[in-house]
């Protein structure tokens, strides 16, 4: 019986090898697929078991994990949650993660390849894996001023450092408390989410980067840039009719409140921008032609492309333009032109930085748990929006808007502010915009303020908020 016995022994060996190969297939080959399946809550539980890294602004943690006694070892906390909600997002057992918690999840949860060496040593020392920290470029004073200014309205504020592209402030209202969504109590989490669902405007929507709105007169800065690039000067006189009949239609385009821009229906470019003359710019756009407008807009970032800063930003676009009538309306920032508040700030930042548009970014440094810096973001040029000469002319014109025109409420004591207001018609009450930068001669901050359905004008509603933000920033002596 020995011969068959030996064969049985070999057969057993083969069977067990099959088992091992199959186990290998599941635990190694299919490991990633199984881990990332939606139904697999183990990975989330695993992440929750680790000390997640912190999100840090100006040396203070705005999101951190504290140890707890319950099954899930760490609780995510957001001191000043409502102030930073648009930046941090939440880290929820039930609803996953959003904004920075999501965008930098690999670093925060410790699974980023840049933290590999530490993970390997953890493997051998048996230390609990820890996440790395993310240090942001934001400025608390700017953020506070922005949120205070937006208190009671729906809107967004974005502030950038035009020299580098670093994001100084990212605010969106209404806001919410991310602590409530990141707790360990599933019932409480669901209740809070239901509350938020029932609100008229969802606070979880980050209006600064995830929604686009018609920019209204703020877009005239881009049209002005196109004009200046094509032979116009700030004092070139352009037609400024009281009422403009759009070519090929019977529609009459009016100025704000039906007013006249100039007594003789001609005006210098700089004056037209200062008082935000609609008819002048509509005609200017028609005269320049769609191609030049589109091409200039693209250089300012309005190219329809989404971005990552590392938060995801939806693309801004000037939309379809089928004829001159539409071109005219588009040139005053209506029709199908749609931009994010971040894009508004980028327009101002490009002008402020001598025509060079820097890529916006929010993460300054990534640090390992032991505080060593493992990565730093280097500022990058996004595009050459326009030439230095044109930028200088635009600056001159935008200073005029604040000193002599609709942007008066943005004036800050002792500092020269340049900007442009915008009042955009839409289904409800008008949207109110202001974009600008300061100090005008050597700008260190560019800001865009957007108030949804503010009802007033960009000048009375948004400009004061911009003033507060700029003042808060510059008071700190930068």
């Amino acid at each position, binding site marked *: *019986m*020995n*011969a*068959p*016995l*030996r064969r*049985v*022994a070999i057969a*057993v*060996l083969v*069977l*067990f090898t*099959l*088992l*091992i190969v*199959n*186990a*290998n297939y*599941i*635990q*190694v080959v*299919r*490991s990633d*697929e*199984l*881990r990332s*399946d939606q*139904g*697999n*809550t*183990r*990975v989330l*539980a*695993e992440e929750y*078991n680790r000390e997640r890294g912190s999100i840090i602004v100006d040396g203070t943690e705005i999101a951190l994990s504290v140890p707890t006694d319950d*099954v899930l070892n760490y609780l995510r906390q957001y001191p000043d949650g409502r102030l930073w909600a648009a930046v941090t997002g939440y880290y929820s057992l039930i609803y996953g993660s959003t904004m920075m918690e999501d965008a930098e999840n690999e670093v925060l949860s410790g699974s980023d390849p840049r933290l590999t060496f530490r993970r390997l040593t953890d*493997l051998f020392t048996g230390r609990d894996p820890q996440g790395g920290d993310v240090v942001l470029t934001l400025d608390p004073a700017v953020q506070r001023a922005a949120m205070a200014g937006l208190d009671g309205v729906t809107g967004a504020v974005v502030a950038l450092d035009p020299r580098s592209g670093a994001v100084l402030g990212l605010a969106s209202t209404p806001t919410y408390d991310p602590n409530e969504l990141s707790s360990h109590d599933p019932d409480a989490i669901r209740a809070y989410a239901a509350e938020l669902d029932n609100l008229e405007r969802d606070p979880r929507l980050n209006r600064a980067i995830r929604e686009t709105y018609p920019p209204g007169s703020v877009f005239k800065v881009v049209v002005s840039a196109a004009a200046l690039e094509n032979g116009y000067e700030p004092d070139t006189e352009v037609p400024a009719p009281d009422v403009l009949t759009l070519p090929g239609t019977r529609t009459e385009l009016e100025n704000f409140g039906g007013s006249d821009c100039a007594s003789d229906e001609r005006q210098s470019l700089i004056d037209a921008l200062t008082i935000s003359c609609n008819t002048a710019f509509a005609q200017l756009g028609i005269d320049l032609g769609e191609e030049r407008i589109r091409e200039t807009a693209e250089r300012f970032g309005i190219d329809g492309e989404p971005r990552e800063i590392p938060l995801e930003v939806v693309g801004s676009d000037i939309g379809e333009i089928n004829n001159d009538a539409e071109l005219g309306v588009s040139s005053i920032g209506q029709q199908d032109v749609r931009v994010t508040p971040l894009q508004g700030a980028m327009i101002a930042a490009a002008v402020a930085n001598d025509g060079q548009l820097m890529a916006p970014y929010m993460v300054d440094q990534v640090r390992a748990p032991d505080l060593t810096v493992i990565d730093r973001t280097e500022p990058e040029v996004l595009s050459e929006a326009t030439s230095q000469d044109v930028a200088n002319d635009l600056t001159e014109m935008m200073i005029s808007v604040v000193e002599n025109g609709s942007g008066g409420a943005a004036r800050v004591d002792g500092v020269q502010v340049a900007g442009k207001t915008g009042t955009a018609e839409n289904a409800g009450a008008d949207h109110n915009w202001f974009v600008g930068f300061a100090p005008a001669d050597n700008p260190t901050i560019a800001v865009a303020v957007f108030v949804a359905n503010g009802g007033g004008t960009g000048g009375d509603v948004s400009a004061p908020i911009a003033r507060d933000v700029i003042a808060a920033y510059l008071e700190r002596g930068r």
Partner: protein
Amino acid sequence: MTAGPTTDPRAAATGPVPKRRGTELALLGFAVLITLVAQLIVDLTITGAPRADLATFSAWFAALWAVAHLVVRKWAPYADPLLLPAVALLSGLGLAVIHRLDLAAEQIDSTVTREDAPVQLLWATLGIALFVVVLVVVRDHRMLSRYAYTLALVGLVLLALPAALPASLSEVNGAKIWIRVAGFSIQPGEFAKIGLIIFFAAYLVNKRDVLALASRRVMGLELPRGRDLGPVLVAWILSILVLVFERDLGSSLLLFGIFVVMLYVATERSSWLLIGLGLFAGGALIAYRIFDHVQTRVDTWLDPFAYRDEGGYQMVQSLFGLGTGGLFGAGLGGGRPDQVPVAKSDFIAAAVGEELGLFGLVAVIVLYLILVERGLRTSLIVRDAFGKLLAAGLAFAVAWQVFVVLGGVTGLLPLTGLTTPFLAYGGSSLVANFGLVALLVRISDAARRPAVPAPAPMPTLGDAPTEVVQP
């Protein structure tokens, strides 16, 4: 012809055969140590402090194996040294994982007070008791063949008993394989299996020549005669009957496989394997057609994710656990093995794979392999045919069961409801398997024991020295 000193060339050639009990003791110590470390890790990871009764547990666990070892030293001194340590490590690991699952249950719902690990330890103690009894009572494994038919009858009765009982006393999750009495549930099938294997071995030893030699040619194959084919058919029909009445797909597969292999080994005819395969395929196809639950099992096996919210949930969770565990595992206490339903028994291998990783799971597979291969080696070297068959049957039973269970848990095969020997929570399975190992130890003792030298043959009258008879 002068008388020789012995008739066993082995003793003459190599000198005294080493008993290897020292090796066994060392390995047992190692196994007990690993078990204790595993317990410690589980407690430290989950509760932050060693369990209050760690000293008691350690003492008890070590004592169990000390007793087993001493019994082996006295009553089976030549036994294979790897059998006991492999079992010790497997059952110890099982205890650690069950304890870990107990803690998980308490963490989730603090009102849960029932702990299964101490119960498993009690069953293990009973198992060691059975181990001792078997070794002491069965001094020579050959005596078992005398009781072959009795054991077969008892085995069949045990197997059929749950089918005869009302569902309230016998059914769990659709399978009528239990007997619930006085608060305890036992699976008589586990014991019946061993009885039937002893019967098979005895029967086959008697009939092997007939089965091997008397044959007819059918379609180019040498097939045994109808009357000799009888037992196989009976075995097959019995297995299917078990399936029908008790809805126990796994046990019928197990018994059938064991019997076919024993038949093959006894007769050395591979035609038995073919017949067996054919019968199995036929039976499986019929079962698939007739029985809904078989169909569900197969469908769920083929695509568990399509049924992830119903019947496939357990399988999907097992796969998630294994995949998340990866190479090194989540660490004892670091995963969520409790998310797999019935993790303590049916799916304990998934818990091992999730927390100890691929390395841990493969280590467990290798432990079983050691157990099985030592059993098969025993059957190779034991001298009597009954011992060979019995050892082979018992060893293959373990191998086949492990393959079917672990295959099911890892998605290689459909689920069958069989238990993972020594590892899974379950009293009957544990105690019965300890009995199985006791038999293997007994046979391996006989196998490795040097043969008693035959008494010197009586000198024939013609060779006797002549005697001078004095007046």
